[in-house]
């Protein structure tokens, strides 16, 4: 099968859906002639024109509100927030309006919009352009939160998100944009709320999100050389969450390491740990549930500090080994 990048997979999903469904349009900053800060929408303005690729001023709240309103009257907007850090500005419309309207109108209104945004550190973009704020939105009933790791997942999950009748926060990762993978040319969807076992193993379950899935897979290869056989589970969507796949994996291995880039305190790892501890997997645990996550600091500019602020492959290898060897 042909290989394309994560970025191209996202662009292809949007392009194909816009060709298929006239109600789909894009709205965001610099997404037009500039093609987006990461070139995700490169060439789309030329194809679809100014009516369907709406360049806005620097107004995250305004563009998210416009998307919410358009969705209410039957459009399927895809809003791009250039950096996840600035979803904080968009969150009034997203959290207080988009997420609530379906409930407040007793199901008579719906907000079928997608808010796409790149998260994560590793590009030297410092405190204001590197955060992973997914769990802010996981906490809000009415929102769905998706975090694809591979180009294949990115396309299938984005198509499912656009067609979903609820607001979806679609969290991309800057360092994944140029990673390649096999992606079918045709239209396909991956249901939201379906985890994927990215690697099968018996000694330890690693539940990881976004780029930490790739790093965990690398770590798993390292550990395999030592005879440690790791299973890597990628939830793919954090809300709704496929608890069944995670619980079954932990029941099989009895040991679990949760890895994410976002700061540990209040991060999604706490939710995962809670889900596991509440489930029947509890009685299969041979060791404490361990979280490996971002440090309790803003992402620093200095490259060395930046790398040390979030889990790297070596950290995952070390932590996984400790759990498997019952050092914790």
């Amino acid at each position, binding site marked *: 099968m042909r290989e394309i990048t994560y970025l191209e997979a996202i662009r292809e999903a949007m392009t194909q859906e816009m060709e298929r469904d006239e109600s789909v349009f894009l709205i965001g900053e610099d997404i037009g002639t500039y093609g987006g*800060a*990461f*070139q995700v929408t490169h060439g789309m303005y030329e194809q679809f024109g100014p009516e369907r690729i709406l360049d806005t001023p620097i107004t995250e709240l305004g563009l998210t509100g416009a998307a919410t309103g358009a969705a209410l009257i039957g459009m399927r907007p895809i809003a791009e927030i250039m950096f996840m850090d600035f979803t904080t500005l968009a969150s009034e419309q997203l959290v207080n309006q988009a997420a609530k309207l379906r409930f407040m109108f007793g199901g008579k209104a719906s907000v079928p919009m997608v808010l796409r945004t790149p998260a994560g550190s590793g*590009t*030297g*973009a410092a405190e204001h*352009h590197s955060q992973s704020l997914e769990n802010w939105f996981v906490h809000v009933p009415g929102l769905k939160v998706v975090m694809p790791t591979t180009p294949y997942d990115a396309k299938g999950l984005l198509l499912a998100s656009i067609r979903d009748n609820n607001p979806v926060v679609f969290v991309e990762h*800057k*360092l994944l*944009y*140029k990673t390649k993978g096999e992606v079918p040319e045709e239209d396909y969807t991956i249901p939201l709320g379906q985890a994927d076992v990215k690697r099968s193993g018996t000694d330890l379950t690693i539940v990881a999100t976004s780029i930490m899935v790739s790093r965990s897979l690398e770590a798993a290869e390292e550990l395999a050389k030592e005879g440690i056989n790791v299973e890597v589970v990628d939830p793919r969507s954090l809300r709704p969450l496929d608890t069944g796949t995670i619980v079954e994996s932990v029941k099989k291995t*009895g040991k679990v390491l949760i890895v994410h880039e976002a700061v540990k305190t209040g991060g999604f790892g706490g939710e995962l740990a809670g889900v596991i501890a509440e489930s029947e997997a*509890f*009685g*299969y*645990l*041979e*060791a404490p549930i361990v979280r490996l996550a971002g440090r309790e600091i803003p992402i620093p500019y200095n490259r060395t500090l930046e790398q040390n602020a979030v889990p790297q492959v070596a950290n995952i290898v070390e932590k996984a080994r400790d759990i498997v060897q*019952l*050092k*914790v």
Partner: protein
Amino acid sequence: MATEVILPKVDMDQETGTIVEWVKKDGEEVTEGEIILVIETDKVAIDVEAPATGVLQGISAAPGEVLPIATVIAHILEPGEELPQGPMPPPPTPQETLAEVPPSTVPATPVARKMAAAHEIDLQQVNGSGQQGQVTKADVVAVVSSPPATAPDGKVYAAPAARRVASELGVDLNQVQGTGPGGRIQSVDVTAAAQSPQPMPIEVQSSSEPEVIPLVGMRRTIAERLTASYQSIPHINFTARILMDAFIATRATLNEHAERAGEARISATALLVKLVSIALQRHPWVNSSFTDEAILLHRSINVGVAVALEEGLIVPVVHDADKKGIALIGTEVSDLATRARAGQLLPSEVGGGTFTISNLGPFGVEQFEAIINPPQAAILAVGMTQQEAVPLDNGEIVAKPVMHITLSADHRVIDGAVAANFMAELKSLLENPILLSY
């Protein structure tokens, strides 16, 4: 100092850049802010400005080259400046200033020192993992967060999985030894405890189907150990025929004494254990263990005596048999056998054996070969004592009490001659027990 011209980072996620063209040539004068070259990222072409005023010198990257960002690609020299020679020196390493640290013999980072003080931890007791054994914050954290070796409140420290398995198998966690960190009980510990000796349930079968005995507990252990022993140890066997009249006479004398003293009778096994222990004392290679790295010649002589049970067998051990009197050995063997059949032996009473005796004489077996009980290097199979035809030196054939013994030895440790010498010694002792007092 000459001003460096570097390949600039112009994009968020840019790792490399391509030189498109040099607008200014080597040796040309440039003014700060003037465009000197064009580079390209995978998105755009970018004009690069001169970072200083002077003469452009030492251009080291040609058009078309792809280089990592921040690579030095040229210099701008002011009058009197020269191009730096060779590679650029690395930036100076910041010197650690530890002047304010209070004096102490233990090297530790300031954070580790502060943290140790807050938790009232003696730094002398912390293993430093930093440079030259310096105690780091992580080392102190490890000490602070390590669980206590034993739960101080008397509660059971067990993993959730261990609790579930214990409940399923009906195992009392108070009786289980934990092997996890801080003595935490893991599920494997519970499984192991459940497989330790306990009576097998007897199932009543009415059909012609075979009776199914699950391979659990002692049966499984026996199967695994004997298979491992027989497959991994090269066994070699030596049989000797022992004339038993002196042995029988000696035992009779000992028993007369015991009766007069009102003490328990001396069993044949007790006398056998004593004589074997003396032979072992004189032939330490037979009282040994084979490991992958070395052969261990044991200083203690601990003789195990196989005892048959309904569900298998167990080998209680007479420790330091060579140092004990025959009467004491007799008491111990009888006590161990009784408690073995009642399932009341302590782990220490079945462990630590350095040699084993298996006596099937009472069952009417004439002679047999036993399988070595690892990690021991040899086992003695003892048959029954019966009247056999024995030719005397003068050619006459008479009936005498005779016993056959067979030594099975680990041939990796015990050479044929070593085993033969041991058997000769043992035969001599059994045929002349008076040699005990030699």
